């Protein structure tokens, strides 16, 4: 019938860009780095195939320590972003007046408007030994000499939380916004205390938003480059920096690709584990808003 032909044609027209995009820009390139990662360099311009790049990774504690460190700090950052962002999202979605809600939300998005670089730059100006905070503290006499607030892990975590907290707040606001206040009222009415209502009603309800926010934040953190580099101290080593080093400083695409694959697999694993533990699915959380 004519109508189904039209349907088929429009389906093909709609599917083609999608297929090209996913195949050429996502799947094949990933396979590409997978392929490169299996290539071993035996001499200038000569290669064989094998797992030696992976073996090299495993046998070098620096690498997997960095990966573990990155993962562990990313989880820490995720947890902190949740802790910092939840009250804010809750305030925006549930407490603020209708009018101020939009303004607040917009204000929360402000840092999103400028690049990572500018933000990190701002932190450097503020936190360095001769920076704003240090000068201020000296001026009011809280400390006698200059204090160095840069170049340590705490600063990196703080800076990362800063860059990602918005991605936590946005999905949280959108789920909490969908929550009917009468659920909270019912929670109290049936005798729940503040804590009970929060623990048994608000949090379970917000779970999809929490998981979505955590996934995005975790991936962004694990994949971030500038903030850990610029704020991190002499001990900081971020896995993306390793990848960059391999690709750029060491011209070693093979091991760079290996690291890329490992980062992807590892973060995917963490995300999968998170979804598993919370009983959510990718489509129901991240794609919800």
């Amino acid at each position, binding site marked *: 019938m004519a109508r189904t032909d039209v349907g088929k044609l429009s389906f093909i027209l709609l599917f083609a860009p999608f297929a090209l995009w996913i195949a050429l820009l996502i799947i094949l390139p990933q396979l590409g780095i997978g392929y490169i990662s299996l290539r071993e360099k035996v001499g200038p311009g000569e290669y064989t195939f094998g797992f030696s790049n992976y073996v090299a990774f495993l046998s070098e504690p620096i690498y997997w320590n960095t990966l573990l460190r990155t993962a562990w700090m990313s989880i820490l950052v995720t947890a902190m972003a949740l802790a910092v962002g939840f009250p804010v999202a809750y305030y925006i979605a549930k407490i603020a007046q209708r009018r101020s809600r939009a303004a607040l939300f917009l204000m929360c998005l402000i840092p999103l408007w400028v690049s990572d670089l500018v933000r990190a730059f701002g932190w450097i100006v503020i936190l360095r030994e001769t920076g704003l905070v240090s000068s201020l503290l000296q001026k009011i006499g809280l400390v006698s000499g200059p204090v160095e607030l840069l170049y340590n892990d705490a600063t990196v975590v703080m800076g990362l939380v800063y860059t990602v907290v918005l991605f936590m707040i946005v999905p949280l606001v959108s789920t909490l916004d969908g929550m009917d206040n009468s659920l909270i*009222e*019912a929670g109290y009415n*049936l005798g729940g205390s503040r804590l009970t209502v929060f623990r048994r009603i608000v949090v379970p309800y917000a779970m999809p938003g929490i998981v979505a926010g955590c996934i995005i934040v975790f991936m962004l953190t694990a994949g971030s480059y500038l903030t850990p580099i610029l704020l991190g101290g002499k001990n900081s080593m971020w896995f993306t920096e390793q990848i960059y080093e391999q690709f750029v400083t060491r011209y070693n695409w093979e091991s760079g690709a290996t690291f890329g694959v490992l980062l992807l697999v590892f973060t995917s694993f963490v995300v999968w584990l998170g979804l598993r533990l919370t009983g959510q699915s990718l489509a129901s959380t991240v794609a919800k808003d």
Partner: protein
Amino acid sequence: MHDLQCESLVKRFGAYTAVNSVSFNVPRGSFFSILGPSGCGKTTLMRMIAGFEAPSSGDIRIKGKSVLSTPPNKRPVKMVFQHLALFPMMNVGENIAYGLRCRGENKADIGGKVARVLDRVGLPGTEHKQVSQLSGGQKQRIAIARCMVLEPDVLLLDEPLGALDLKLRERMKIELKQLQHQFETTFLYITHDQSEALLMSDNVAVMNAGQFEQIGSPQELYNNPKTGFVAGFVGDSNRWSGRVVSLSEGKVRVAIDGGGEVTALAGDNRIAAGGSVEVFVRPEAISIGGGRDEVLGGTVESLLFNGASSRILVRMDNGHLVEVGQAVMDGSVTVSPGEKVQICWSQLHGRAFTTAR
């Protein structure tokens, strides 16, 4: 003994007074309804009783004790919300057990109580169903069970049938009334649907613009409305505005705008000669033909067949459209559209009220 007493309750939102000096008592075990149009302050009143709003002034007493300083989660009143507010992330059993667990009852007891209350609302064994698997009527009953398992002194219901469809609503009306009998708990019921209020309640308060217009049994409200608002809001009525010609012995002679004069009972004592009034006559009090006190002429405009509650629309000579009740059961229709007819009713069935400004 009264389970719930409200005394001169007032609630202001800024300059706007949502509830204005409302007082009422609900006797133990009775079914009390508050009936009023949308936005008249019903929900606000109920939220004050539940503790979600603090009254601007006035007192609320439950079993004689003021609860003003009791926080909402400690008040012995439970509430069924308009959209039920069943917790979507818990199954039926958990929803019902929620209140018991908040109270800290032990696990074993809880299971038994949940099973028993589910039995009583006619849904035994549904503990493990998800809320989303229930039909509208079943959700309704779970929402009631969730409150009743806590054995509250008063159950508040805020338009609980609003979200249901027509046929189900009809059925749930009767069922709700039966549940109330069964639990022997005091129900405070809010609605804007007069048939719900009339059908189920022992007493109904008609609310308008933050105030109670009248409190009484359904029959009292229907047969003896005290204000024009009640006469118009409770049950169907034909309503004509006019001007008082004369007044004697509780009867008013009214010149209807557009032409014609009728006599009706004076509904309030502010009626004076020359004042403008509204006359209310119920369709089922009017019949076609002559023979009673009040007679007006008109033309049949159309026949609205609706089974037992069919109506005849008559365009009166003064231009007003009048609904006339039609006793169908035996009488096949005797009039047809376009026919000139007379309509009549007894003076006792007309009622005049001063027009509200």
